[in-house]
């Protein structure tokens, strides 16, 4: 946090190297979030770039009251909302199948002893879960991605999404319940 602030102060004084350091530090987190908010990998990369361009242009307005992490995710979330408004017809319903199948080939199963059946099941579960995430309503998806995948605390999510803490908790519960229902054929009884 302190190191972030130092970088921000330097970036605010037009130090491009400091901004570069910020990008290197956060680009993976931001991309990992956006890539599950939009169906196309190329769009996700474009939106991640746009997030950092906007951050660069408005770095002087950044206030130390929010963390840099929260600020960047707020920009990214707003861009995803704009994107989904523009692509209302297809957002959340289509998946970039070619991109996903490429990624499936590279996916590693962290805890599997070599058991082809289990590997197959985990692959299938992972693919089902990715699809289920894309089909979640945007509000629920945002919260579950920020909490369960990015590991942000409730209060930061409330600040990013602009809703009360209780709403974050209920959206998280609803998102998890919807995902469980979608995956229930694959889950243990």
């Amino acid at each position, binding site marked *: 946090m302190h190191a972030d602030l130092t970088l921000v102060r330097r970036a605010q004084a037009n130090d491009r190297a400091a901004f570069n350091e910020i990008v290197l530090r956060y*680009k993976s987190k931001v991309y*990992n979030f956006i890539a599950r908010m939009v169906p196309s990998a190329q769009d996700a990369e474009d939106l991640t*770039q746009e997030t950092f*361009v906007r951050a660069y242009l408005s770095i*002087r*307005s950044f206030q130390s009251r929010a963390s840099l992490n929260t600020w960047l995710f707020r920009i990214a979330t707003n861009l995803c909302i704009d994107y989904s408004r523009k692509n209302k017809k297809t957002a959340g319903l289509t998946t970039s199948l070619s991109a996903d199948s490429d990624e499936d080939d590279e996916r590693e199963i962290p805890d599997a002893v070599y058991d082809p059946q289990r590997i197959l099941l985990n692959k299938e579960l992972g693919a089902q879960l990715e699809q289920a995430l894309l089909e979640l309503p945007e509000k629920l998806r945002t919260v579950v991605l920020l909490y369960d995948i990015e590991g942000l605390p409730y209060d930061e999510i409330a600040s990013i999404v602009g809703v009360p803490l209780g709403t974050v908790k209920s959206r998280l519960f609803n998102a*998890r319940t919807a995902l*469980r*229902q979608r995956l229930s054929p694959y889950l*243990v009884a």
Partner: protein
Amino acid sequence: MSTRLNENGPGCGPARELLNGFLDNRLSARQTWVLEKHLADCPACAQLARQMEQTVSLLRQLDRRDTSDFFMANLHARLDAEEAASPARRSPIAAIREWPTLFLETLDARRWPAVGLGLALTALVALLLMPQQGPVPVPETQPAAPQASINQPLRRNVALSAANPLDDPAAANLLANVGESGGATDAEQTQD
């Protein structure tokens, strides 16, 4: 299966409210005890809890995705383009846009003591530098200087007219009028 999970027995509602906290290890010891006791007695909620636990675990194991190898190069190209456009774009509008932010930052609660001290010192210095002034002098009633400056040439002119050999009676009347407005003696002398 899902119909069974939707069944609600006594205590299912409160138990399901605790489920999120249970999954995130945020329950107190007492809440955990209440939930575990319910789960031991309610197969539907126990199954729900197991499946929710598994779902959350799967979510947290999802592969992390990363940007392409060209991301940084593309980003820097865009930032260069933005910077090239920046002098025209940034100077007036950005400065105006930044004003509220700078003002709000000044109002940051942590800076109030420093801001207050600064204002107090400024007020004190202004008070000391202020010139000491006595009572404001009341202006005396000034003589009608403009009136005199008009009357004197007029009298001179009228006197000249009165001295005209043609002896204009209108000039005599004018002279009488000037005499009424304060210069009568002069006019009479001129007439004589």
